[in-house]
């Protein structure tokens, strides 16, 4: 965060940061037009905001609407600015802070899921161990030969982190993660 890089006593950002940073998940509904993702990302880099995870895909084909899910970290003041700045972009329809909305609904956090492909070198007893653990994590084998597996695992980011950490000593080769998809519980839309 730029705010923390400023020298103390700067005329540009002088107020000491007394608020604590929080991690929030935002849903952004945008027109799926060329460059829209660049606008969103450029806003984050240009204004010194964080992106911890970014997921984007067209969700309503007839209306050419895409839904962008961004996990970001900042103080409540910065998070409010991020939301306002995003709403200022011409192709942005709506921005919902899912974390704030979840709290309003009485939930700890929104539903957040991520998919990962995990390639593991597997031979000898490590092979059996990797398979056994994958089963415990409900990861499915989608490709394998005698010396490797590719697992597909879906779940909360924390579960995926844990699975990757466990696979490391067993011969982890590579990981690909989709980033977080999120929505809130209950019957209402964003």
């Amino acid at each position, binding site marked *: 965060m730029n705010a923390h890089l400023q020298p103390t*006593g700067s005329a540009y950002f002088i107020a000491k940061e007394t608020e604590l940073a929080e991690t929030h998940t935002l849903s952004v509904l945008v027109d799926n037009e060329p460059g829209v993702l660049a*606008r969103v990302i450029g806003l984050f880099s240009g204004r010194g905001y964080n992106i911890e995870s970014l997921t984007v895909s067209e969700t309503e084909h007839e209306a050419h609407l895409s839904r962008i899910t961004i996990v970001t970290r900042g103080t409540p003041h910065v998070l*409010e600015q991020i939301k306002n700045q995003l709403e200022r972009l011409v192709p942005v329809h709506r921005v919902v802070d899912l974390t704030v909305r979840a709290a309003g609904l009485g939930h700890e956090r929104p539903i957040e899921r991520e998919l990962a492909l995990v390639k593991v070198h597997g031979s000898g007893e490590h092979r059996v161990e990797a398979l056994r653990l994958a089963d415990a994590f409900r990861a499915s084998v989608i490709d394998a030969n005698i010396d490797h597996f590719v697992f597909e695992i879906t779940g909360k980011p924390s579960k995926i982190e844990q699975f990757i950490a466990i696979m490391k000593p067993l011969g982890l080769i590579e990981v690909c993660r989709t980033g977080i998809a999120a929505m809130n519980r209950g019957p209402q839309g964003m």
Partner: protein
Amino acid sequence: MSGTENQMTGAEIVLQALKDNGVEHIFGYPGGAVLPIYDEIFQQEDIQHILVRHEQGAGHMAEGYARSTGKVGVMLVTSGPGATNAVTPLQDALMDSIPLVCISGQVPTSLIGSDAFQECDTIGITRPCTKHNWLVRDVNELARVIHEAFRVAQSGRPGPVVVDIPKDVQFATGTYTPPSAVPTQKSYQPKTQGDLKKIEEAVALMKTARQPVIYSGGGVINSGPQAAHFLRELVELTDFPITSTLMGLGAYPASGKNWLGMLGMHGTYEANLAMHDCDVMICIGARFDDRITGRLNAFSPNSKKIHIDIDPSSINKNVRVDVPIIGDVAAVLEDMVRLWRAAAKTVDQTRLGDWWKAISRWRARNSLAYTPSADVIMPQYAIQRLYELTKDRDTYITTEVGQHQMWAAQFFGFEEPNRWMTSGGLGTMGYGFPAAVGVQVAHPESLVIDIAGDASIQMCIQEMSCAVQYGLPVKIFILNNQYMGMVRQWQQLLHGNRLSHSYTEAMPDFVKLAEAYGGVGIRCEKPGELDDAIRQMIDTPAPVIFDCRVANLANCFPMIPSGKAHNEMLLPDEATDEAVANAIDAKGRQLV
């Protein structure tokens, strides 16, 4: 819909769309990728094209044109260097919320991405310095995009937009759709009416205020003449003191009895102390910029703050406010005035007596005082004389950036909105002269003066050639002190008086320079000769460069040094060499 009468080439569509959006003047420079559009310009007479000498000049001219008329300014540039030269005015217009449409040529669609001659990623480069931008790949989309560009540029918080048109799209034939037949983008529908509950809350707060102050900004000017009208009415009804940012000068008349002068880093003592000590602050179309607030954690510590702004992201950005009102200044002030009138009977007007007494004491401090001289022209004196000799005329003022800009803001009295064009947010040296040319194009009969510094004026001086070509009698009034005065002032304050590269050792002869371009040059070095020289400038029906030799080492006060609060101002009579050297402590030295 697709009748043959609506079939046109892309270049014809551009011209038709500009006409249908009320454009009468465009500022531009031709090049390979816009030649089809230039060919259309040649074959019509409704739109006048002003040929500039550098694309930066085109942008600032369009800004001056827009700022002085309330209309959208239009610039036309070619691909590659034409577009990159437009970046500075685009960012300038973004920061000062000036409605600007920039049409740029692009290499043919089949060559995009191939590093073709004069290719650049115009959309990528201008994305962060525009409100929105479009690359038009389909000629049938062209009319819609241009209409939408005008809507986006002038609605909500105004700003610059870019429409990038590949050369093959300019040649291609497609269907023209008039503005009324084009659907607007649903995701961009700015709100102009303020929330009535919030306005009621604001009025209730204002009724009980004992030390109120109105702090107005460029948003009042952008909102149009109605906004200035309601602002004046509100001040009249409430009897609140009013100050303004650099961008907002003229919304309330400088001769008005409630006027405190400009606030901020070089604002008056009374304006800054009123801001510091107030109990209710009404911020109208301003954005709590760092040049205004000084040290944020000491900014107006005891006040409740009302903030009227059309841009929700301005609310709570730098300063936490208590009553945010999102809407157009004119619409909100109209409601506010109506509610105040309804409540007027219940307001105790005597409650402001002590506050006005305090303000009178601060005014008596005379914070803009300077030591006059009979031998050399003091820069403040030069501005005062310029004001006195032009105030009864139809005058527009632009400035460059630096000490002369602050002195102009302090000593030139603005009575009406749209009469003052200056680069506030970006602080662009080189803005003032092309902006003045743009103003003169819009107001050919008016007196248009660029108050300039000797350094700034050299950044866009080439537009003299443009002014002479079109017979635009713009006056450049240079406060020539041979220094980059504001840079030097900061070096004196912050860097031990080590004047690193702030002195211009080889200054052009401005009189000869004016003559070389085909204009008129005037030089004045003595205070006693100044009035006659200014009169001569005013009476010259041609572009004039006025080389006003002023005291070289004068500095601009009062000043809130970096890292200081509003009540820690450096006043002119206290600004001894020692005070200047010690004004900013080690922490403040890191700041800008």
